[in-house]
């Protein structure tokens, strides 16, 4: 009796869980290629065919520059064929090299093989819906997203942006849909998540807030996105004795993740053309709690 309960209960729980929410990784995952991050995410990478929410931090909540760069880097690699969760880590294993100064590990994610010495071009269309046309092509290219792939959709109101995103999630030959919105009703996020699940197109919501009041209000609201990230700028650490700024450094926080634990990493993002996006984790703290105050301010 006790034995039956012991084996049966977890099995039933698993079945109920599966009925309640289909696996978020049904369409495969996109590994970051950084083991510390991929091990935290269920399935070993960012779920394709799902809605992901990306927040800025501090003053960047208004501009969304870091969030856009983060998303551009991800979409730039989305053209790689989906891999099953088990294969992902072995196929795109990161190369590790110790960082000067001995603080943590430098993990770089190499590009897919180059064709003819030129960066490979992506396939398909990226629909980027935004209220203000401030996205800059060379900046996107620097983060590995071919600007020629991007179709910009300008709509002044959040409702129209959400509508355009949903339309995009139903169309074929779309690689990814990005929307920059301020307010996000829970129903709208649910609709986007369902549309993304159905079509297998990955959707990204960049949150941009005009003022602190709106930010405080919206930050607390729940929504249906599978993951919620916050990208914050950190002071750069140029080599000792050199003037000017070093490579940009980010604090990437995974605030919420369906089927996973929240986590936080600090990364260095080189501007060089050799690397696509998240390149180095200076110090990874996978079990970090949500509160950001515990972190040492570097630099």
């Amino acid at each position: 009796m006790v034995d039956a309960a012991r084996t049966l209960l977890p099995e039933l729980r698993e079945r109920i869980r599966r009925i309640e929410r289909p696996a978020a990784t049904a369409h495969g995952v996109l590994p970051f290629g950084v083991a510390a991050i991929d091990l935290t995410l269920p399935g070993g990478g960012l779920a394709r065919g799902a809605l992901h929410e990306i927040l800025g931090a501090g003053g960047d909540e208004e501009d969304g520059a870091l969030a856009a760069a983060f998303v551009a880097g991800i979409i730039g690699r989305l053209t790689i064929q989906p891999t099953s969760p088990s294969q992902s880590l072995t196929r795109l294993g990161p190369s590790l090299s110790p960082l000067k100064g001995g603080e943590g590990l430098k993990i770089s994610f190499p590009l897919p093989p180059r064709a003819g010495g030129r960066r490979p071009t992506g396939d398909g269309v990226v629909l980027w819906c935004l209220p203000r046309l401030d996205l800059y092509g060379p900046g996107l290219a620097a983060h590995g997203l071919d600007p020629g792939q991007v179709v910009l959709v300008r709509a002044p109101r959040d409702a129209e942006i959400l509508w355009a995103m949903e339309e995009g999630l139903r169309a074929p030959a779309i690689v990814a849909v990005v929307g920059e919105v301020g307010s996000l009703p829970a129903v709208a996020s649910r609709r986007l998540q369902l549309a993304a699940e159905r079509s297998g197109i990955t959707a990204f919501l960049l949150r941009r807030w005009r003022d602190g009041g709106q930010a405080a209000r919206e930050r607390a609201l729940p929504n249906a996105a599978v993951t919620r990230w916050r990208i914050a700028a950190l002071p750069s650490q140029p080599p000792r004795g050199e003037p000017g700024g070093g490579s940009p450094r980010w604090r990437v926080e995974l605030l919420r993740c369906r089927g996973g634990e929240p986590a936080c990493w600090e990364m260095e993002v080189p501007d060089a053309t050799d690397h696509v996006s998240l390149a180095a984790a200076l110090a990874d703290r996978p079990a970090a709690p949500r509160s950001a105050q515990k972190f040492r301010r570097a630099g």
Partner: protein
Amino acid sequence: MPLADALSFLPGLATAAAEPAEDAAALRRLAEWCGRYSPWTAPDGVDGVRIEITGSAHLWGGERALAADLKTRLDRRGVIGRVAVADTIGAAWATARFAEAGDSAVIVPPGEVRAALASLPVEALRLDPTTAQGLRRVGLKQVGELYAMPRDALARRFGETVAQRLDQALDDLPEPLSPLGEVPTRRVRLSFAEPFTEPADLMLAAERLIADLVQRLAQEGTGARRLDLAFHRVDGRVERIRLGTARPSRDPRHLASLFKERLDTVDPGLGIEDMILAALAVEPLPPQQIGLPGHAAGNETRGIAQLLDRLGNRLGLDALSRLEARASHIPERASVRVPVALPSPASLRSAPSPASLRSAPSPALRERGDPAQRAGWVRGYLKPPRPIRLFDPPEPLEAFWLLPDDPPFRFTWRRRRHRVTRADGPERIAEEWWRPEGSGAVDAIRDYYRVEDEEGRRFWLFRAGLHGGEHAPRWFVHGVFS
């Protein structure tokens, strides 16, 4: 006659202020309503409407039947009017106003214009009163009396207009009719015995019209680029939906979905009695292999085009754009937005073959593989780094700096204060001297700095102008780095 005189003759005369603008608008609406007879309609002066019915009269059972139908409908709407049909605009104008025909329409049979006009007064030639009076003074009272006159003598005595008007009326001189709107190349029409207002019925009717039009387009091997669906209301107003497509299309479901989205903008009033669907612009669209369901390869390109159409027709086609690299050092010119619907230069150079049309997904994608474009982006993102967000126009800020070539140590932007901890620069970018706005302007030289504040946010600032000039240099933030 002045109003005061008239009132003295007839006290209690009802008067109303003249409203020429209102009258013109009403006449224009009437001309638009006449679009049910032919696409070529235009208001004529202040009291007439011209309709070119060549080629469309047979649809109504001949000219006489068409004129009778028009007269009946005008009467029903309470419009007092006279209808005349003739070979030329001048002859129709003259017979409508001066022919003795009572209430019925005047039909001048083809080739009998001379005879029909001969007995009409000279005013029937659309002359101004002074010229007409001059003709009368020399005894020329009827149009027929002018036939024998030498044209140059007429012109010498009474000016060019008399001869010109006479020639136009007699079809010796062509007179073009400029239509009110665009003249569609393909048009289908549906009339209803019983007017209706239900949106669902409107949609059904629209689908039937689309099916008719698509059939014609398929026979010609063309696809519609711009469409116009006109709803003729019982009260004579005309409601319209106009839309465009990113690529030529003759997919009935796609076109129907485009109209459906806009159908709520149509006010059916008391009812719709006529619907006319017109293709204003068509482009060649060879027959295409439709992909098997499930094998989406063939359907993908159409999917993108249809998505762009849906977005464009709701948000406006100018809301859609894509980025293109340009060879320029000026940051805002290095990346320009171009409309998605624009055909790419590559497709203009070579005439599109069926194969290229099939394989080319959309202009946006066609361009992408272009090596020149790729090289442009590569040039753009190679060092020095460029921001991911660029503000156009640059936003002014308040900066504090020490030495002339130093970056600011503190600046205030959007009412927020930033302390600069690190800075790179300057990178000097000068206006392109070969452009008119670039030569000799005070702000022609910009010194860009990449600065980092204590939070770690990185901005792209520039100083416009030089120290020691007549204007103090100004600072702007042009972009934000990731």
